[in-house]
């Protein structure tokens, strides 16, 4: 789950970068950039959750 979270972080960044490099309009770029950030937040949530599970297992 942690690895998946890290991959989602990188994937979200890839979406943001692609939006800036490939899309011409500001609105299009902003929309895709927000989508990329949403993917990153999903990845962050997965990593946090994996650490919570690990801590509970140790406890």
């Amino acid at each position, binding site marked *: 789950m942690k690895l998946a979270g890290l991959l989602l*972080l990188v*994937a979200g*960044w890839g979406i943001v970068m692609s939006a800036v*490099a490939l899309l011409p309009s500001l609105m299009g770029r902003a929309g895709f*950039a927000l989508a990329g*950030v949403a993917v990153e937040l999903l990845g962050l949530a997965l990593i946090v959750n994996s650490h*919570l599970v690990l801590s*509970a297992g140790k406890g």
Partner: protein
Amino acid sequence: MVPMACVGLALVNTGLGRARSAAHAMLSSLCVCSVAAIVYVIIGFSFQGTPGGQAHVFAIGGKTWNWIAAEPFFLRGLRLDFSPVSLIVLLQIFSVGLASLIPLSSGADRWRLGATCVSTALLAGLTYPLFAHWVWGGGWLAQLGANYGVGSGFVDGGGCSTIQVVGGLTALSITWILGPRPGKYTPEGTSAAIPGHNVVLVLLGCFFAWIGWLGLNSSGAILFGGAEPSRVILVAVNTTLSAAASALMAAAVTRIRFGGPDASLVANGWLAGLVASCAGAAFLKPAAGILVGAVAGALVAFAIDLLESRLGVDDPGGAISVHAIGGLWGLCAVASLSEVGAQSGSRGQWLAQLVGMATLLGFVLPLTYGLNWLLNRVYRQRVDVEGEWRGMDLQELGAGAYPEFVVHSDDFIQG
């Protein structure tokens, strides 16, 4: 003035840790500043560079992407006089030390000294210079405006992203890798309060940090933000107002939530205000400076509780909330409240700041986590269980910080 910020953070980190790790915390602060300075001079600056310097560049669709600098190692060929480049090098040596002190706060009471130094070498030699090149060295983030018409490009005059958020995300990685201190969480997952051993040190550190941040924000705004030297007064006013509003807001929030102001949270609020002021201190009106600080103070008071109680992150000094979350808010404030956003179009500047923040989360966090995870595989970062109960002072240094004091028995209560 800038080294005073390092002094301030070192005092805050030490005061918020346990008495039995106080000498270790202070020695670690000295060691990471030393390692950071040396590693940065050897290889860090060659990766960071300066605008217009040698760099590796590639093109996509006719637009250039300046990826990493290619300056010589050991500052070879650089004249260390009063030239702008030499001033940048000097400021960066202090700045990378400041960034390296941030994770120390999160790893307090359990992070081995040797591992601290190696982790700092990774931060000062790769993570910090790479991102700093993108923002301050003429890299692709700084050129977003010129290349793609995205606002004025990513704007960060005082190191809100390069120093604070990079340090804060490294602190988050360290807490994940080290895990919580013994006794911090019950088997049911309820967190126990482990208060800092010396609040006076913490509050004294806040005053030192204030002086340091005045220098950091002023020099950063001139050298990296393109601000006129006459703006130094505005920078100082905004830095002070932001810290003041943030501390007062943190005091008000803790007064409402807990019935009285919490000294350590107010201190963290003060620091969060300083951090949030970094990015746009030269471009904010004083009223906006107060607003930036007030939001930072409220954010940090809630974020520390959220991370500790709900997300299982044992961050003894609150560094993640102060530096990562406070820093991200400061970057948002540049787009929404500063003259930069107003001049270049608020939407475009929002996008530029958003791309910078996405890069911090999507590139810097995985990079710093991965590097520290690899380090932990080859060189264990956390002290052993016996060492944690003895305290880092006795375990690693052989003597305590306060040998004449009787150790309270509640220091050894197990959860």
